[in-house]
């Protein structure tokens, strides 16, 4: 990470060389990864009572970034806990959708212990993604 410069200090070419080096490092990554990744839904181990068993064991690990969690519950009655893996905070019970076809949405800014970059788990869902709704002005 580049260090900011302070007003009143001498400006040297080394700062610009650091900037150049960072851009040269970033661009190949930016070019190759300028894509919109899909989120895989969950699947059974061996096709044996798959949807139910696998979803019950499901564990989606998020590194928190955006405001809204969009998800679909697994077809079981185990609830959809949002879990702090450290165990320091109480799990949040996400509303259960009416089967995997209904889409749920949860405002993550309402979770007091959840901060950007923090890991958390979502269980018993078929799929889930984080989005920033206001951003969808593409096209």
């Amino acid at each position, binding site marked *: 990470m580049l260090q*900011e410069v302070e007003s009143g200090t001498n400006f040297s070419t080394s700062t610009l060389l650091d900037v150049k080096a960072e851009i040269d490092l970033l661009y190949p990554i*930016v070019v*190759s990864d300028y894509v919109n*990744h899909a989120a895989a839904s969950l699947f059974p181990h061996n096709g044996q009572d*798959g949807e139910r068993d696998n979803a019950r064991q499901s564990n989606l690990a998020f590194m928190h970034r955006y405001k809204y969690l969009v998800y679909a519950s697994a077809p079981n009655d185990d609830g959809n806990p949002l879990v702090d893996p450290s165990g320091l905070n109480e799990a949040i019970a996400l509303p259960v959708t009416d089967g995997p076809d209904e889409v749920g949405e949860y405002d993550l800014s309402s979770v007091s212990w959840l901060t950007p970059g923090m890991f958390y788990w979502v269980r018993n869902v078929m799929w889930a993604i984080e989005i920033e709704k206001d951003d969808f002005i593409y096209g």
Partner: protein
Amino acid sequence: MLFSINIPQRFLAPVLARLLGFLEGEKMNKGYVLPPLVKDGNPLSAYGLNQLIGSINEVRSEYFDYNIMKQRTLMVNSFGAWESSYILVHAFKTLYIQVQVEGLNDMGDLKIYAKKTGKNQTSYLIHTAPVTTSPQVLTIQLNMDTNQNGFNVSYGEIYMISFRNTYEDSGGVVCLYMYEFDSAITPVAPTIPTITSSTVIDENYLNNIISSVRSIPSRPKVNVPFNGIGSPGDYNASGYMRWLGRHRCKYIFYGCWLIDGEVEIQFKVNNQVIDTVNSGSGSVQFYNRSYNFQTNPAGITVPAIGADYDFSAEFDYVDEGHPAAAAFVTYAYESDW
């Protein structure tokens, strides 16, 4: 009477930068202030330079700090849509799918379906790929801005892609890649000369750097999770625990739990063992592990920075006296610290 309002540039600059970004056709909110361009004869302020540095750090964070492994779904035998779905928020024109076909003879057609998420949505067959030989890698690109056999999706809508096949023999298909892209807006890397004793650091030099940062387009604001995958204690199931890694950082961090008796699994990068975890005898054991690509204690061939790789977990040993033995990989991501 005319009034003159003196607004410091540090307040105006972010506003102007956003306005300029909008006028330049910026499609998505970048979440940071674009660095201002400079002009010969004007002072290069610490504030302006720090906007450039701040923008670069934001881009770095966007691409390096959220580097979670993505599931590579294995589908075996006769598979249905419910076991092979991918979720996308439509953001770019082209849907890119790559699958690896393994161990199938005359598999027949691999069918790809699309439907919007939500209740009472119709599933459309949008592509049929004949599979006659194996192993092979199939690459499929579909223009999602056009009608795909009856399926239409608007930008910002969430939709689901699934695979189906009815062949009953053993074998499998692994989805290696599933993403959207748009070649028309793919960034182009700049050429920034190295500073030498004869380099004049003028408006042209600085604006070349600044413009290269300003022109990095924003990514879709979609955050995809790590799919924790469990597997029962039989060797055939190991192939399910497979993810796509994109090498950026110094470390891989990963975790797992092992249950019921002696279970040993190996973690691999491009099929090279980096770590072996054995539960010993006992009940559930939790593990948090890491691997340092730079010191590379296992002596593997480390992927190049920017390269994709396969991250997998496979059973190496299961005590058959404990048929309930199982493993579960709880997280895996790359990070620099």
